[in-house]
C-alpha cells in the first residue's frame, strides 16, 4: 500500500461523516475527512434537534462533551389559523432524566466539535476542500478528485448531504424528485437566555421543541420552533411541489408566520441574525435509493435519504450518525473491499435503522391529506373560540355549535375521508 493511500476517505463532515470517521479513527484506521465548508457546519442547516441515543451508540457519555443547546423537556403542537392559535404542551421531566432524550443543536457548533473529535482520535480533517469527482479503476471506486489533486483510499464514504453529487456521479441513484423532498427555511433569532427560559417556562438548560400546522397557506408542510442557548430557531418546511402550484413565495409565508401574534409574542425584542435553507428527505423508507454501495464506496446520512417525519417527530441527524456507525463497522469487519457494501446494509438492519424506517413507511401519506394544513387547524381554533366565548347572549347548544364550526370548514364526508386516510397511514 502506498504511503499516501488512506483506509477511508469520508466526504462531508456532517453528523454522518464525522460519526463514521470518528469510529474508524478510534479503531486506528487512517482516515481523511473532507469538508467543503471553510469549517464543518458552515454549509449546514437543520431545525434542529438531535436525539441523544445516536451519540450514545457512537460512544457512551460522548454527548457530555458535545456543544449541545437545551435538553428538550417540553414537546408542543401548535394549530394556527389567521387569527388565533391552539397549543398543546406536553411537559415531561422524564425526558431529561439520566441521558436526556434529545437536545436542540446549532450545526455550526455541533459539526465543528464532532470533526475536532475525529482529529483528536488521529483522523485528518481537510476543510475548505470541494470534492469534484471520484476516481474509478476496473469498475471500483478508488479515491476522489479535488482541486486538481487525487487522493486514494480503500473505501470512499459519501456523506455529502441530500444533494449527493457523488452518489449520482457513481451511478448509484438518480436525482431527487420534487415530491420526495421538503424545502426548509429558517431564521435564527437572538434573544437573551433568561428571556427564553421565562417565556417558555423552562430551566436555563432545558428547552422546547414545537411543531406547528396551519401556517403554510394550505401547502403541505409545517413549522418548527426550537429554543437554543441565546437563540430561537424558527422555520417552516414546505412541499416544494405544492408551493409551486400555490404561487406565493415561501420566504414571504415564513414572514407571515413569524409575525403571527401567537409567535411574535415569543420572539418579540429579539433580532434575526441568520437566514438558512436546506432540503430534507420527506418520504422516509420509500425514498431510500435501492443502491447505497458499490465496490469501494458506500453512501450514508442525508445522501442516502435517511429520514423519519411523523409530523411530530422529525429525525435526520440521529439516523445520519447511526448510518455512519454502520459504515464504519462494515469497513472494520470486512475482510475484502467487495464485502464492505453488503456488510454495511446488514449493519443498517442490525442497528435497527432500516427497521425504524419501515415502521413509519406510510406516514408520509398523512402529508398528502388535503385539509390537514388549512381546514383542520382552522376548525380546531373556531371550536375553541366557540367553547370559550362569553358575550351575555344565549349560546347555541354545545353539540349544535360544534357541528356548525365543523360544517363551516369541512363537509362530514371530507372529515370521514380524511380520517380514514390518516388511519390507513399509521
Amino acid at each position, binding site marked *: 500500500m502506498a504511503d499516501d493511500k488512506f483506509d477511508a476517505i469520508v466526504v462531508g463532515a456532517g453528523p454522518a461523516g464525522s460519526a463514521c470517521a470518528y469510529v474508524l479513527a478510534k479503531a486506528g484506521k487512517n482516515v481523511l475527512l473532507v469538508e467543503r465548508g471553510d469549517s464543518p457546519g458552515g454549509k449546514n442547516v437543520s431545525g434542529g434537534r438531535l436525539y441523544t441515543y445516536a451519540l450514545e451508540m457512537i460512544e457512551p457519555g460522548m454527548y457530555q462533551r458535545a456543544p449541545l443547546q437545551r435538553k428538550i423537556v417540553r414537546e408542543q403542537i401548535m394549530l394556527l389559523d389567521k387569527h388565533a392559535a391552539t397549543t398543546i404542551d406536553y411537559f415531561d421531566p422524564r425526558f431529561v432524566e439520566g441521558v436526556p432524550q434529545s437536545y436542540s443543536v446549532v450545526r455550526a457548533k455541533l459539526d465543528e466539535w464532532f470533526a475536532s473529535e475525529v482529529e483528536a482520535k488521529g483522523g485528518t480533517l481537510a476543510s475548505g476542500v470541494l470534492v469534484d469527482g471520484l476516481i474509478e479503476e476496473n469498475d471500483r471506486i478508488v479515491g476522489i478528485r*479535488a482541486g486538481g489533486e487525487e487522493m486514494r483510499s480503500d473505501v470512499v464514504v459519501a456523506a455529502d448531504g441530500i444533494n449527493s453529487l457523488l452518489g449520482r456521479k457513481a451511478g448509484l441513484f438518480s436525482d431527487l424528485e420534487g415530491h420526495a423532498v421538503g424545502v426548509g427555511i429558517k431564521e435564527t433569532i437572538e434573544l437573551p437566555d433568561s428571556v427564553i427560559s421565562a417565556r417558555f417556562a423552562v430551566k436555563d438548560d432545558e428547552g422546547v421543541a414545537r411543531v406547528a400546522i396551519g401556517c403554510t397557506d394550505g401547502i403541505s408542510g409545517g413549522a418548527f420552533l426550537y429554543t437554543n442557548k441565546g437563540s430561537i430557531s424558527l422555520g417552516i418546511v414546505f412541499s416544494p411541489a405544492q408551493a*409551486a402550484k400555490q404561487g406565493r413565495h415561501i420566504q414571504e409565508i415564513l414572514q407571515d408566520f413569524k409575525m403571527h401574534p401567537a409567535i411574535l409574542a415569543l420572539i418579540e425584542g429579539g433580532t434575526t441574525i441568520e437566514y438558512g435553507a436546506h432540503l430534507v428527505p420527506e418520504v422516509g423508507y420509500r425514498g431510500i435509493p435501492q443502491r447505497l454501495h458499490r465496490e469501494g464506496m458506500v453512501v450514508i446520512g442525508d445522501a442516502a435519504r435517511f429520514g423519519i417525519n411523523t409530523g411530530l417527530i422529525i429525525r435526520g441527524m440521529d439516523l445520519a450518525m447511526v448510518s455512519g456507525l454502520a459504515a464504519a463497522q462494515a469497513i472494520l469487519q470486512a475482510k475484502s473491499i467487495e464485502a464492505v457494501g453488503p456488510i454495511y446494509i446488514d449493519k443498517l438492519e442490525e442497528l435497527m435503522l432500516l427497521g425504524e424506517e419501515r415502521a413509519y413507511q406510510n406516514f408520509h401519506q398523512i402529508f398528502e391529506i388535503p385539509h390537514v394544513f388549512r381546514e383542520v387547524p382552522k376548525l380546531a381554533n373556531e371550536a375553541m373560540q366557540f367553547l370559550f366565548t362569553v358575550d351575555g347572549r344565549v349560546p347555541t347548544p354545545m353539540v349544535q355549535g360544534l357541528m356548525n364550526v365543523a360544517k363551516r370548514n369541512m363537509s362530514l364526508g371530507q372529515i370521514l375521508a380524511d380520517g380514514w386516510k390518516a388511519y390507513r397511514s399509521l
Partner: protein
Amino acid sequence: MSIKRLSPEESLALDKFAVDEGKPHIIVDKAICAHCSDRACLVVCPARLYRLKDNQISFEFAGCLECGTCRVMCSEGGVTSWNYPRASFGVTYRTS
C-alpha cells in the same frame, strides 16, 4: 432591534457570503425557461434569486443558499448545470 418582516434581500443580508465573481455555480438557460409554464423556481427558491423581468426568467447566483431546490423543481431543464460553489466560496452559516 426588534422583530420585523424581512424582504428576501434583507434576509440574505444577514448571511455571510463569499461571491465567486464571474463564476456562477448554477447555469440557467433562459431560452429553455422561456418555454416553461411551471416556473416553480419563482416561488420555491428560498433566496428568491429567480425573478421575472419582461416575462423572462432572470437568475442571480450571488446569495444562493446552496439548497438544491431549484434543480429538483426545474421541470423543463432550464437549470442546465448545478454545482456547489468552489471551495471557500458561497454561503457560510454561523448559527444554523
